[in-house]
């Protein structure tokens, strides 16, 4: 008589709190040194090679990976703490974050040994930026409609076609991309795609900027014109990439970055409301706090399940669905609650600038990394409806 959803009340163990203190001290130093401004999300470049190297030197990239590849063999929960503290502080982690969250774990699973030894330690040192090559001009959420092609040649493959919405492609060192190596079969339309590791310095690759409506250069179009990829850069099974996609989803979707991108709105709202808010301000704030606390407890629970070796795909999708919808509505709610604050509040300029940024950013939250519709399809499948 019960639905099969699990969100155990995982608590972060004591070693996480010691780590949190170290992370906060490090970020405070970086802020003091002028590396970034915690009150200005969206201003400046979120890629910072020097900063990422310092993060790597701290041992906070590839934290859960084996030591023989440069990792630190720490827990998912410790990685969780670093991720959320960086996100809340608006630290410019974009350069190493995709590699740390997604690309590294894929390499760990599917790359040949010599490639692991070559690349993973460099990721851990904060030296490498990765880009994900999945969407194409004609295929977004429908991943398996990808057309960009890899053709077998002596010693490797020639890639032709284009990938789009590729975050960080203009600074990336490597792409993990899906390319068509065979046509789909009648029985399985997901058949025929292969995952490749592509060196972005390869001849025949052009990166064209696409500016976002926030004014930021978030993503790009990457065009491949006979770009060569050697055989040992094939990740996993040829034509069988569809079998490899699922286990990473829980990592990608349930993290705190899914609902903390515009977190700094909340402290600004608290500052604007002052220590004695009116009834409306207090109730609005209280609900937002309860909702955020709930999301965080869910997200930590999924991290705990990952640490325990489970594959909480449905739970991870639920966290991203609820988290992105919540964050999308956040600027709207903050705007409403701040509408009647005293004209002389000291942080009005900061609040208004952050509100403007978050309002323009909001539409993308439910699109990137799996749209709301796709997530709900996955949840529905998990419920036994598909």
């Amino acid at each position, binding site marked *: 008589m019960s639905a099969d959803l699990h969100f155990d009340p995982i608590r972060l163990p004591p070693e996480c709190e010691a780590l949190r203190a170290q992370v906060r001290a490090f970020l405070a130093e970086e802020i003091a040194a002028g590396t970034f401004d915690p009150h200005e999300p969206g201003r400046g470049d979120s890629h910072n090679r020097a900063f990422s190297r310092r993060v790597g030197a701290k041992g906070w990239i590839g934290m859960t990976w084996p030591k023989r590849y440069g990792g630190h063999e720490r827990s998912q929960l410790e990685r969780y703490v670093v991720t959320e503290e960086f996100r809340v502080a608006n630290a410019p982690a974009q350069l190493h974050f995709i590699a740390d969250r997604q690309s590294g774990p894929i390499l760990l699973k599917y790359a040949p040994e010599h490639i692991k030894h070559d690349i993973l330690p460099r990721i851990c040192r904060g030296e490498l930026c990765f880009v994900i090559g999945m969407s194409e001009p004609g295929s977004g959420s429908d991943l398996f409609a990808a057309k960009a092609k890899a053709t077998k040649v002596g010693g490797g493959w020639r890639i032709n076609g284009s990938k789009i919405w590729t975050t960080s492609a203009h600074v990336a060192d490597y792409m993990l991309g899906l390319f068509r190596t065979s046509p789909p079969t009648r029985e399985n339309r997901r058949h025929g795609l292969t995952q490749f590791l592509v060196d972005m310095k390869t001849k025949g690759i052009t990166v064209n900027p696409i500016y976002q409506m926030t004014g930021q250069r978030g993503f790009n179009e990457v065009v491949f014109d006979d770009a060569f990829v050697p055989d040992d850069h094939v990740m996993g099974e040829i034509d069988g990439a569809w079998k490899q996609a699922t286990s990473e989803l829980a990592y990608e979707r349930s993290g705190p970055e899914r609902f903390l991108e515009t977190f700094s709105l*909340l*402290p600004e709202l608290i500052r604007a409301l002052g220590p004695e808010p009116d009834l409306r301000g207090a109730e609005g704030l209280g609900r937002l706090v309860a909702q955020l606390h709930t999301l965080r407890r869910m997200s930590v629970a999924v991290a705990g399940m990952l640490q325990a070796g489970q594959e909480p795909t449905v739970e991870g999708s639920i966290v991203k669905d609820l988290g992105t919808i919540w964050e999308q509505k956040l600027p709207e709610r903050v705007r409403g609650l701040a509408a009647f604050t005293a004209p002389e509040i000291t942080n009005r300029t900061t609040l208004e600038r952050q509100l403007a940024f978050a309002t323009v950013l909001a539409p993308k939250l439910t699109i990137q990394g799996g749209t709301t519709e796709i997530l709900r399809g996955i949840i529905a499948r998990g419920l036994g409806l598909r």
Partner: protein
Amino acid sequence: MMSRIRGLDESPPSEAARIAGLRAVVTDGEIHIVTEAAARIFADLADPQTVNKAKDDGWKAPLWNALSAAGLPLAWVPEALGGSGATLAEGFAILAVAGRFALAVPLAETLAAGWLLARAGVPAPAAPMTLAPVRPHDRILIEADGRLSGRATGVPFAQDAAYIAVLAEDRDRQSIALVDVKDCRLGAGRNLAGDAANVVTFDRMRPLHYAPAPEGFEPLSLPLMGATIRSIETAGALETILSLSVAYANERVAFERPIGKFQAVQQNLARLAGETAAALAVAGSAADTLAQAAAFDEAVFLEAASAKIRTAEAAAESVAIAHQVFGAIGFTQEHILHRFTLRALSWRDDFGSESYWAVELGKRIARRGADDFWPLVASR
């Protein structure tokens, strides 16, 4: 039965833990034994279909007798005071199962009443109980000679209970009293689901027993405990609402397909799963916090208040979706859906509504200030 599964604590609890009645968490295995026992009794004697078809309340006595025989109603009363001395964690686990059955007898209320009485060392009678006040602005005053006066509204199952555990106050301190329902004036009243919810008037009446609440028992201790209890029951009810809705969507054929095959319906059910998941996560987190806390501190406040707010919001969303999935049949008396949906909606009002707790939580967060906000959230 439970006292045989688990006796009183081997080691004496700390002073702070004694005040709150809080003890170390027990293992999953022990919890499992207790919840299995509860689930078996509910399945045998409180089956929602059977109860829904029943013409009268004849099913209630056998159910209560079985629950009592298993030591469940007085689970939170130490053996020395007449109970079965279970941990808070065990009791919360029982209530999660009770929520899944949308139980319509005062099990949660008797558990909570026993817990409240035990705070002051007042022995608990072996009978159905309830507790007062359950609404934040109701006050019951105690005079120097122990007489109680005041009014408590929406007291769940008061007319079905034999006794009421009362949290009363005089100018500067609180007392906990045991009252015979017959000595109070009861006004008629029912919640949305038809369960008794009476206005209870205390007209300078004498309690059977009373004793001062222990040092450290705050005015908010009872509301926080009650909020956690209702959150757990609500999450349980939502679990069943989700299961029923998914099963129905897979069965019911329209336009030549099970309606669960339509994307519009799937999207709604995915949202229902999300709301259920949120309720389970936040209620489970609050229960775990209370079960391990040394005192009713800031952490307990954040967890319990958030649980009441978020489970109430989840209830409203989920009830709307579930009824939409079921269509007209779910709106009938004959169908069991309302047993779960109407209780989930009713429980929102007990021990502080989501609006009440949101105001209280918002005020606290504002008082702490912007810089202390993230550290508090991250401390959980």
